[in-house]
């Protein structure tokens, strides 16, 4: 089975058709995705801004970190699941979309980021209570850059050129020279 066949199969499912061709599902999913970005993004911003010492510096980092966690998780789940559904609607187009792949690369880098900074920052938040290390601040800046990049490239997916050939490739409807 080729990738193309798998993607085309996905596009043929009822779920995919319902989102791709339907009136409300696509914008509603998009709206929930946006609200989840506001939610998850907000908590993430708060967390990173705390690491940078700009938001709630008088509160202990670990205190805030543990309280943010459940919200981050819920937000993340909603963002990713709505994202998956949106992707399920048009996998063929996304496969050819440069912005989609850049976004996914950034997403992978987010995973790398979590792993790289686990020991020094996120694994033991109490370490930051005495004072936020410069390594932690670097982690925060990179986190903000990665997620901002994902928001930008995510926005650009819906509007990039990749699926629309400039010269449309369609078999001619008519075969007579006079056009009828």
């Amino acid at each position, binding site marked *: 089975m080729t990738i193309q066949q798998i993607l085309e199969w996905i596009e043929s499912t009822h779920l995919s058709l319902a989102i791709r061709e339907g009136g409300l599902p*696509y*914008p509603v999913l*998009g*709206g929930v995705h*946006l*609200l989840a*970005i*506001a*939610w*998850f*993004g*907000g*908590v*993430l*911003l*708060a967390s990173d*801004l705390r690491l940078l010492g700009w*938001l*709630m510096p008088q*509160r202990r980092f670990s*205190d805030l970190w543990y*309280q943010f966690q*459940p*919200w981050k998780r819920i937000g993340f789940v909603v963002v990713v699941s709505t994202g998956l559904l949106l992707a399920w609607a048009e996998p063929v187009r996304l496969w050819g979309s440069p912005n989609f792949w850049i976004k996914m690369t950034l997403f992978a880098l987010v995973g790398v980021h979590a792993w790289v900074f686990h020991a020094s920052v996120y694994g033991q938040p109490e370490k930051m209570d005495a004072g936020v290390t410069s390594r932690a601040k670097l982690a925060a800046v990179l986190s903000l850059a990665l997620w*901002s990049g994902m*928001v*930008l490239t995510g*926005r*650009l997916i819906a*509007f990039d050129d990749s699926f629309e050939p400039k010269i449309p490739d369609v078999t001619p409807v008519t075969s007579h020279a006079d056009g009828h």
Partner: protein
Amino acid sequence: MPIEFYRWLVNSPWSHLLNSSEWVFPVVQTLHFIGFALSIGTIAIVDFRLLGLGMKRQSAADLAADLEPWTRLGIAVMLITGPLMFSTDAVAYHYNPSFQFKMVCLAFALLFHFTLRRWAVRSDAPPVAAGLVAVMSLLLWAGVVAGGRMIAFI
């Protein structure tokens, strides 16, 4: 507002700037999204706290006081990026029912935020009142986001 005002916006230098290039508008729009993550995100954190959900190690009043500067920064970003984008298509946008709905929600959300909700947060209102205020706030801001999303689909 007379139609000439909207036409003037469409022909403004900033409108031309956003329309002239392929990437200016999406960058401005992305800043709009980051702005609402900051504003609506921090508002939602306090609203959920008013509902007794999460961030319980701080009182709602303390949490709101800590986050308010950031909420305002977010709102400032929105109030700059929003009109910038609106200007690019002011005539068409102002006719759009979803945009109109969004503006109504926004007006009420801002008014509510700086009046009733502020009172509820600072005065440590009883749980039922606090809960109602929180739900109202969440609904109004959700209306703003939903209205914004639906502009392109109405």
